[in-house]
């Protein structure tokens, strides 16, 4: 369990953390999600003791560590750019923390070998970091952080420097690893897909403040505000309201659209729009639209719906929101 209370940190006039309070339950995998400059990395580095807070306190496992040096916090930290010790072999990198703790050589060797097997780097013991790929280096860094049996594992954009395919693989792998070792894990990311994919809980940060904390489904379906909604998942602006593109229904007839819309509370109403482009993305079809007001938005419909509508560029359709933060559908309606 990690408790951050009233954390503040400024660099000159820039408030990186502005009264942040956050509880991270033991054994969870929590993502700190936010844009660049939102303070998520500063928060993580403060938990690690790599930054000193201007005000506030940090408690890890019941112990107030606010004034404790990073060496004594019982943490494992994984850096975005791996921070591999370039002059050491993989074995020495992973065993570094244990050798600092003066553990017997045999114990270190055994533990290192075990960890390398877990992270899939068995047989790489005598390589140097320069001889590893980015993904392998990051897995080595993870093994290194886990070697000292940390109470909490802190990951600062761990997959940020890797290419898309490797990122996705490592993400899945991290999730499985967490399910095996259950160490309390905090992951910093600016990638909402990554957060939704791996985390049990997500804390969305913006401008040094926490906007919302909750499980991924709650944040996606019931965002606390426009910022969280637009940061987590894609959005379209329909008649001044933010709506998910897959929550927009399209109709050929105005009457049909209006009659269905009448059953929805808080709806932005029926919007007349011209089809600008129809893009088939496998099962989904994205329809780019332009409203009378000139506002452009995109709706996401299934292939079957699109076929039924038989949309052509330049044709007029009627759009309505079926769901949204302010929209509640009283009874399910057919899309068409």
């Amino acid at each position, binding site marked *: 369990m990690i408790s951050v209370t009233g954390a503040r940190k400024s660099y000159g006039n820039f408030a990186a953390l502005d009264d942040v309070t956050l509880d991270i339950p033991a054994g969870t995998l929590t993502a700190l999600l936010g844009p660049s400059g939102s303070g998520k990395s500063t928060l993580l580095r403060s938990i*690690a*003791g*790599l930054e000193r807070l201007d005000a506030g306190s940090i408690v890890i496992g019941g112990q107030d560590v606010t004034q404790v*040096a*990073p*060496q*004594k*916090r019982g*943490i*494992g*930290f994984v*850096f975005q*750019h*791996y*921070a*591999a*010790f*370039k*002059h*050491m072999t993989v074995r020495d990198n992973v065993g*570094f*923390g244990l050798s*600092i*703790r003066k553990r017997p050589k045999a114990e270190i060797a055994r533990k290192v070998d075990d960890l390398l097997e877990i992270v899939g780097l068995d047989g790489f013991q005598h390589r140097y970091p320069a001889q590893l790929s980015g993904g392998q280096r990051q897995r080595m*860094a993870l093994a*290194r*952080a886990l*070697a*000292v049996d940390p109470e909490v594992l802190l990951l600062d954009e761990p997959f940020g420097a890797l290419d898309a395919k490797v990122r996705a693989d490592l993400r899945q792998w991290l999730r499985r690893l967490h399910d095996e070792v259950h160490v309390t894990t905090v992951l910093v990311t600016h990638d909402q897909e990554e957060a939704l994919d791996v985390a049990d809980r997500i804390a969305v940060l913006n401008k040094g403040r926490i906007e919302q904390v909750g499980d991924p489904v709650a944040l996606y379906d019931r965002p606390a505000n426009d910022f969280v909604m637009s940061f987590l998942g894609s959005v379209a602006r329909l008649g001044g309201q933010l709506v998910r593109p897959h929550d927009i229904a399209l109709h050929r007839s105005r009457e049909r659209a209006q009659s269905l819309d009448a059953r929805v509370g808080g709806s932005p109403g029926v919007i007349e729009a011209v089809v600008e482009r129809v893009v088939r993305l496998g099962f989904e079809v994205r329809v780019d639209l332009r409203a009378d007001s000139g506002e452009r938005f995109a709706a996401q419909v299934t292939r079957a719906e699109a076929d039924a509508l038989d949309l052509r560029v330049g044709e007029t359709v009627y759009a309505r929101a079926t769901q949204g933060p302010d929209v509640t559908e009283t009874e399910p309606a057919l899309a068409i």
Partner: protein
Amino acid sequence: MKTSTATRLGLRTVALGYLVVLLAVPIVLILWRTLGEGVGAFLESVRTPAAISALNLSLLIVAIVVPLNVVFGVATALALVRGRFRGRGLVQAVVDLPFAVSPIVVGVSLILLWGAGGWLGGVEKLGFKVIFGLPGMVIATLFVTLPFVVREVEPVLHEIGTDQEQAAATLGASSAQTFWRITLPAIRWGLTYGVVLTVARALGEFGAVIMVSSGFPGVSQTLTLLVHSRYIDDHNTYGAYAAATLLMGLAVVTLLLMTLLDRKRST
């Protein structure tokens, strides 16, 4: 640019011709004049008591200067890269100063500071003879070699950043452990390169050292002073050539080390 063969050959000829006239021919000539008399004559000339004493003195100065430069050079580089103190720009400028100061001016400055009647001339009465003594030659050499280690280590420190050191800290390493096990190994090639430059310059320094040395053969002559005095005072041209050849040999070793280290550093 696609240059015609004629142009290319022309440019090549001019460039290589310049280098031959300026560098190659004089060096080959001096080697020929030294070794033309036989290796025995050369060895005899560099084995006289005065020559051996000069070599020992040069090496002694190197042995004192190098450790000092390593310790303070690394500390200065760390302060410049990691420090956020006022006057950082000033320190940067001071580190570069020795490159811009004539060796003779270095000598004059040291005489005016440490010599009789100088600001710190009082230490002479305490039995610490700086000017015309070993300390003066060491301080002069320190002055001219001061930038090398700093300037070679600084960019390496910049490049490695603090990630590795922070990682070491999160793994429980104390700052001393981090320095010895992470920082020092990471800068080792840059540091070695700086040391090689320091050694080369320390062995080769002439102007600053001649100003502060009493220059007695067999007592206070370094190798470079020996070359000078053999040529000027003793009119022993051959002896001067032989001593110069010895120094040249050391320079070539330096050059080889530099080339090797350059390759090491870039991997």
